[in-house]
């Protein structure tokens, strides 16, 4: 991967590594992926994020060559690969089920692709040993998959794909089967790996927390379409649709209407916001939902009663029932010092202008 | 194999099916044909040969024996086989596999050797050969199939239902009869049908252990050795229908998927 590092350092960031143009996939009458364009740049750690059935796995498999697109074409490293199968593309996939060869040892699994490519035996051995160290599988090299734990199998699958030094590494919800602690550990390892080898990773997940933790670019999909594409911070703070707002992170959502530059919510809150007339949705993250014992100068001024306080280790999560009837959530960070956090306490609830986002309703 | 295009695969599949089924189809076809020699042209359609067959006293004798043997073997091998499968289900996988391999040995032996061994042993023991010696001889190679089929189901059996029944007050035998048996009943019936089909069809072992009597297969053999009796097609058709029929039902019951 040294070559990739050098290239990333010197080459101008213009030509995308992977270009999808007009790519779509149809199964009978169902469009799993509507025609879309996507550019993936070298060095990115990109997440394809969305609920079940949104087309993210289909899209990943289209990039990998396991499916033929119903329309459009795909370029990888400047080469048109649309008609090529996975064996001819410079991509490699880490499968959700790991897909290890049950009759081969760890060493043989990892070295398989190199053997197919006809590399000389000493070179294969050296590379395999290097990878075994990289993914911390030392001592397990001669075991069969059935004698490995889930986490270990996952690392073999990873090493096997990396052995091929792919231009793009594809990960298909590979962490889904691991328990929480192992997942966190693997997430850290993947990020470290990405920093170390500087490759391009594309991974599929339905877990927005995982997407935010791992990726430096998130593409949100819904019903076969790209809804939003940006950095985790952008997606979190500036969701473009109600769906994205609700899907990413926790959100307090208020329905309202905008007329002549003024947004009016059902509970009486009014503030000015430029934009088209019509139904809107106001998104306020819990860490921006302020609580105070007395009125404070915010864009909204609501009152309510604390219903529940949950201690989550790093912060409190406060559930408030507003007098107007809605349920909202707040984090400790947004609570003014001196506020009594007992259940039943009356509080004033509101937000600052930069803590809320107005999104056109679906 | 993407080297082999889809059309070639379809052709191969079709040809294989035709290859496997056509001899049987032809026998059935000719049993209804006017031509005494099983060839074209067929003449007209007739049930004449069936009447000839039914007029043959040997046929009834053979049918009688076949029924006695088949039903007895079916019942007995189901009992011994199911019991053994239950035992195997409790044992660790290695032991169970070893036991199964051992009990399956009679199937791996060439039938002729087994037939001669049985005949020699019976004769040395001074036993008179009849259907009574045929039945246990069949048992030995039908019970492995019953064991295999029932054991496969027992392995997938959710033992929690037995525990649940006992938790609700049922004794072990009661739980077995009221909970386990109804669940595995189709499998057992299927296994019994398979055992019967195998027993019905057996020729070699029956031939050497039956003494003077006849079953349907040995009758066919006799007809083949003597003259060209066209009613042999009718007899063949009956055997085909009986064996394929019972195995088709068995396959459906046991929901066999390979």
């Amino acid at each position, binding site marked *: 991967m040294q070559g990739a590092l050098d290239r990333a350092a010197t080459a101008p960031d213009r030509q995308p590594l992977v270009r999808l143009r007009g790519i779509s996939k149809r199964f009978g009458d169902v469009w799993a992926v509507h025609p879309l364009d996507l550019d993936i740049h070298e060095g990115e750690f990109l997440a394809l994020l969305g609920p079940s059935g949104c087309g993210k796995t289909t899209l990943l498999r289209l990039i990998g060559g396991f499916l033929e697109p119903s329309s459009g074409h795909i370029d990888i490293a400047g080469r048109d690969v649309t008609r090529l199968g*996975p*064996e*001819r593309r410079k991509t490699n996939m880490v*499968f959700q*089920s*790991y*897909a290890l060869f*049950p009759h*081969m040892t760890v060493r*043989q699994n990892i070295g*398989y692709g190199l053997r197919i490519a006809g590399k000389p035996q000493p070179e294969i051995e050296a590379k395999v040993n290097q990878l075994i160290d990289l993914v911390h599988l030392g001592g397990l090299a001669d075991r069969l998959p059935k004698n490995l734990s889930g986490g270990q199998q996952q690392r073999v699958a990873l090493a*096997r*794909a990396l052995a*091929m030094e792919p231009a793009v590494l594809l990960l298909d919800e590979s962490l889904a089967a691991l328990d929480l602690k192992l997942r966190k550990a693997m997430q850290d390892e993947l990020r470290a790996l990405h920093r170390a080898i500087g490759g391009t990773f594309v991974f599929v997940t339905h877990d927005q927390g995982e997407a935010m933790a791992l990726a430096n670019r998130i593409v949100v999909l819904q019903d076969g379409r790209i809804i939003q594409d940006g950095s985790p911070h952008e997606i979190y703070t500036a969701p473009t649709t109600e769906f994205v707002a609700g899907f990413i992170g926790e959100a307090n959502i208020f329905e309202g209407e905008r007329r002549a530059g003024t947004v009016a919510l059902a509970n009486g809150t009014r503030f000015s916001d430029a934009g088209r007339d019509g139904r809107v949705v106001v998104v306020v993250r819990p860490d921006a939902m302020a609580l105070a014992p007395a009125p404070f100068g915010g864009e909204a001024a609501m009152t309510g009663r604390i219903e529940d306080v949950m201690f989550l280790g790093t912060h409190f999560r406060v559930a408030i029932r507003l007098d107007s009837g809605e349920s909202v959530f707040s984090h400790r960070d947004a609570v003014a010092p001196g506020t009594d956090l007992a259940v039943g306490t009356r509080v004033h609830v509101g937000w600052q202008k930069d803590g809320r986002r107005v999104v056109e309703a679906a | *194999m993407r*080297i082999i295009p889809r059309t070639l*695969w379809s052709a*191969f*599949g079709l040809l294989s099916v035709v290859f*496997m089924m056509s*001899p*049987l189809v032809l026998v059935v076809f*000719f049993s209804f044909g006017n031509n005494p*020699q*099983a*060839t*074209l042209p067929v003449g007209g359609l007739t049930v004449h040969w069936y009447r000839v067959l039914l007029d043959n006293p040997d046929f009834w004798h053979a049918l009688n024996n076949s029924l006695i043997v088949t039903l007895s073997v079916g019942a007995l091998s189901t*009992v*011994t*086989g199911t019991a*053994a499968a*239950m035992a195997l289900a*409790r*044992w660790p996988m290695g032991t169970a596999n070893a*036991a199964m391999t051992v*009990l399956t040995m009679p199937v*791996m032996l*060439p039938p*002729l*050797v087994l037939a001669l*061994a049985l*005949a*020699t*042993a019976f004769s*040395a023991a001074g036993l008179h050969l009849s259907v009574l010696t045929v039945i246990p*001889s069949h*048992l030995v190679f039908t019970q492995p199939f019953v064991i295999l089929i029932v054991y496969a189901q027992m392995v997938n059996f959710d033992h929690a239902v037995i525990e649940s029944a006992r938790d609700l007050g049922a004794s072990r035998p009661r739980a077995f009869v009221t909970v386990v048996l109804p669940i595995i009943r189709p499998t057992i019936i299927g296994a019994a049908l398979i055992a019967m089909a195998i027993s019905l*069809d*057996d*020729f*070699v072992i029956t031939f050497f252990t039956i003494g003077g009597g006849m079953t349907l*297969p040995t009758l066919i053999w006799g007809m083949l050795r003597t003259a060209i009796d066209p009613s042999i097609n009718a007899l*063949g058709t009956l055997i*085909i229908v009986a*064996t*394929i029929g019972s*195995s*088709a039902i068995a*396959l459906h019951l046991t929901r066999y*998927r390979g």
Partner: protein
Amino acid sequence: MSAIDRRSSILFAPALVVFAVFFLIPVGFFFVVSFWQLKFYELVPGFSFENYVEVYREYLHAGIFTFSIALIIATLTTVIGFMLAYLIRFRAGRYGPILLFLVMITLFGGYLVKIYAWKTILGTQGILNAGLMALGIIDEPIAWILYSPHAVVLTLVHFLLPFAVLPIYGALRGISDDPLEAARDLGARPLRVLIDIVLPQAMPGITAGFALAFLISAGDYVTPRLVGGTSTFMVGNFIESQFVNRLNAPVGSALSFSVLAACLVTLAGATFLARRLLRPR
């Protein structure tokens, strides 16, 4: 073994008794008989290898002939059986279960009936010749198919095909699809995927199918008798002849066990070879 408790022993007992009394003892006794002698139509107990020597002297040639035919039959059956099983498992899609069902029921169609069926099909007035003549491909009936080794091979392959498909399909069913995709992802062309990933995992089923086909062919006497004619005398025929015509149980027994031993050696060798060839590097 603590897992073998009293209850399961009782359950296992009937099957075991049947096995011991009607298989182990007769076969064991039969084996002992192979060391006895036949003098003036009377069995004389003793211990002598004479029967085995006679077997080697008289039947070696027939044995080799039989084994060659059995090998051809087993190979053909296994190859075609593998292709069929592969078709059902990987390529037939919706039609897979139907195809499997059809294969399974032909398993039970009747042993003698099938042999008889081929006898009528292949005869000079049989439907094969009738068809070929009607199509104008030949002028005179082909007489050399029936009553020849070719007929024996054809008939036995037909009979044994379902027996081979079963264990092979069972093994193929246990192969998950993902590793095959993974192999393609790593650069393997379809043929390599077959050799590297499918075949090694299918091996137990293939070996079982091959062994079954080989054993049954080697010991068969009915098929050669009915469709093999005078030019095809297989070991099974000789065993039967020794027993039935000459009433010579000892020699018949010796021949039987010689064949059995030779079969096992051949199969062990074939299995070893196959495993060697398909070992991942």
